[in-house]
């Protein structure tokens, strides 16, 4: 039987049994890992972004070592691929894609949105990034270049967006509340809620 045609649930159960029977992992470890994966969500990345906006020392750490910066906020990173953080500036806007599959910084953003895995997004992000951003309604100021980051190997990437004007007096929790999943992938940029 071709493994690609196997029933997914049965295959998973068989692999789990083999892994535990061989003593490679315990059922407790598998359960804990599933719990960590399920608990991850874009709110974790948003807390990192908000802290980086409010605290220059944390921003420097986050840009140098995303994994350490996540751990500093209590986000579990053990076993996760190294995390890199890409800073949007007045000169460059970052857009993250995985053209080969669906590599995504799950530890800090949770499960990827459905469109992130679509063939259309993966193809167009590298070939027509400006057309793609236009469809998201994302308008970049003139003179901002786009850097498309294709997540092809061992790192996972998230975007540190620019802090919107008008938030200078905001607390970190208020800042975190306006940072969306798409802002940390680069398809959108944070905006203030309509009054």
């Amino acid at each position: 039987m071709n493994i690609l045609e196997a029933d997914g649930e049965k295959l998973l159960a068989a692999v789990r049994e083999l892994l535990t029977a061989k003593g490679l992992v315990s059922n407790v470890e598998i359960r804990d890992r599933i719990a960590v994966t399920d608990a991850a969500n874009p709110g974790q990345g948003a807390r990192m972004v908000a802290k980086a906006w409010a605290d220059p020392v944390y921003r420097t750490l986050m840009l140098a070592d995303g994994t350490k910066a996540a751990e500093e906020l209590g986000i579990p990173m053990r076993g996760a691929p190294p995390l890199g953080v890409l800073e949007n500036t007045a000169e460059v806007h970052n857009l993250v894609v995985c053209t080969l599959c669906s590599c995504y910084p799950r530890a800090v953003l949770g499960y990827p949105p459905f469109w992130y895995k679509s063939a259309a997004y993966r193809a167009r992000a590298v070939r027509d990034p400006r057309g793609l951003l236009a469809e998201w309604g994302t308008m970049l100021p003139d003179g901002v270049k786009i850097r498309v980051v294709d997540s092809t190997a061992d790192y996972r990437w998230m975007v540190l967006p620019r802090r919107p004007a008008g938030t200078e007096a905001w607390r970190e929790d208020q800042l975190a509340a306006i940072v969306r999943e798409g802002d940390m992938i680069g398809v959108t940029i944070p905006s203030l809620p309509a009054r």
Partner: protein
Amino acid sequence: MPAFAPGAHVRVRDDWPETRGRVHIRTPHYVRGMRGTVVRCFGAFPNPEDLAFARPATRRPLYHVAFDQPAVWQEGKAGDELLVEIYEHWLEPA
């Protein structure tokens, strides 16, 4: 020791191992044969081309390589770029 320093001009090998048999390749098609610039080396990681088949995997230096986006696709806006993680054995000096 990584073979390429930041700023080095490189070309991605114009090689298509998938035409010769079963492989697992982390070098996207669209950069094969393209010229780029090394931005940084991340250190060495086990070669996924071996890991995928449970073979002993040599650690290979991994780089961030920047490519001119319009040059790769023959369309797009001047100045836009692509940044791709590529293992050293896929790169040659350019």
